[in-house]
């Protein structure tokens, strides 16, 4: 890509989303779509993030709140089961953690370089409500 000259791309700084025709896009999962290398799905913006959410499936009730609220469509859910986070597109805004209703939360924010397994091993215990 870095060697592409001025005469080698389409005019107008215009980018195509898919190679070829879009086809049945609504009925095709993201990972099965034929995205171009220029599409925002292919491009990683992980380096925009300074804090990251860590997902602990032990407490998740698959309510889909995080999936609904994520502003970057970065919660990966299949068949109504939360399976993880798209770390190429998550900006670390923390909204998923805010809206998570479980106790303890199934999603918590940590510094970008924190070790995921260590944080899950040290996950906070259930909070007891004071009467």
């Amino acid at each position, binding site marked *: 890509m870095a060697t592409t000259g001025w005469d080698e*791309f389409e*005019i*107008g*700084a*215009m980018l*195509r*989303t*898919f190679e070829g025709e*879009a*086809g049945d896009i609504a009925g095709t999962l993201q990972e099965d779509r034929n995205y171009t290398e220029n599409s925002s799905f292919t491009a990683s913006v992980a380096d925009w993030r300074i804090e990251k959410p860590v997902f602990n499936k032990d407490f998740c009730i698959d309510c889909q709140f995080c999936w609904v609220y994520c502003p970057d469509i970065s919660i990966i859910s299949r068949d109504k089961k939360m399976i993880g986070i798209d770390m190429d597109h998550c900006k670390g805004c923390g909204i998923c953690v805010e809206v998570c209703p479980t106790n303890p939360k199934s999603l918590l924010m940590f510094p970008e370089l924190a070790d995921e397994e260590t944080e899950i091993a040290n996950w906070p215990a259930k909070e007891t409500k004071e009467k």
Partner: protein
Amino acid sequence: MAFDKMELRDIEVWDGNFAAAQALRQCQVDVVSAYPITPSTPIVEGYAKFKSDNYVEGEFVMVESEHAAMSGCIGAAAAGGRVATATSSQGLALMSETLYQASGMRLPIVLNIVNRALAAPLNVNGDHSDMYMVRDSGWIQFDAFCPQEAYDLNFIAFKVAEDHDVRTPAIVNQDGFMTSHTAQGVHTMDDDTAFGFVGEYKPMNDMLDFEHPVTHGVQTEEDWHFEHKARQHNDMMTVVPAKIDAAFAEFEKLTGRKYNQVEQYDMDDADVAVVCMGTSVETAREVAKEMREKGIKAGVVGIRVFRPFPFMAIADALKDVKAVAALDRSAPGGTAGALFNEIAGSLFNTDSKMLLSGYIYGLGGRDLTKKHLVDLYTELQANADAGKLLTKQQQYIGVRGPKLAYL
């Protein structure tokens, strides 16, 4: 929904604004997104009336500013429509940010600029300050000297801009009031002939092609911006001039009216010449003829295509002339006038020994009279006879007070 055709006489009495509005109707423009400003308002008002009266199948979008007007045009053009608008002066200044978007996105919009002075002091009359302000915006710029040309050049502008090898927006300039509000006989084309010249709009990379989704208006930083701007310039330099010539030739075949990137009048044996734009060309042509009766071999060069600037054609037109005046109708703001600089640049590495002097004239609609031009040609002849410039390189004509001369 079908639209009605309009019966036109072979020659109609139209001013430049109405001629341009009729051209927009005959091209069946899909979207006009516009905000009114003197003296260009009747162009978009005319299109809106044609639409209300069912002479156009399109959309007229009323917006809150000229910035929004061109933004609407950009959206409509990216969506895949034939798009046009019009503005002047302050409106163009507000629109200027979006002009660079349109050209960088390679959207073939046609913009009619009815040339008017820029404030301050506020002024609604004609000069070329607005045309000059956006000269490096990446738009093709045509210049009409009279209502007939305002009509004709709109068709040519669509034809060139929409070509898939060009895909670059185009401006059609006409002088505020002197052309826009002066009614003259205009030779018309009937609706079918006119539409046949521009043809059905052929979309390219349009957002409404759902099978091929595209992102328009992307961001590129130091990694890609330079390549895109290089491509734009390359196409202006190498593709557009030939496409303009081809459109001029096809238009001549259709109508008998011949256009050239550089218009030359009495230039075959000229010793002295005036280079100018807009209605001044017609005044200069009249004076040149009168000078010839007095024994001065005077000629006139009119710039029909201001961008891409016809560098080589100008050099060729002026190579044997002894003394040339570049007439700039815009306050140069601390340098030589734009035409002076362009002409000087085109002749610099050549064998021409031409004596070039620049004149600033006509700001804010100040008349350029025949008397001014008689004096000018006389001054040029004196330069030619002396074999050197007898004046400073930059002078003002038609301004009250002590004589202004610089450089």
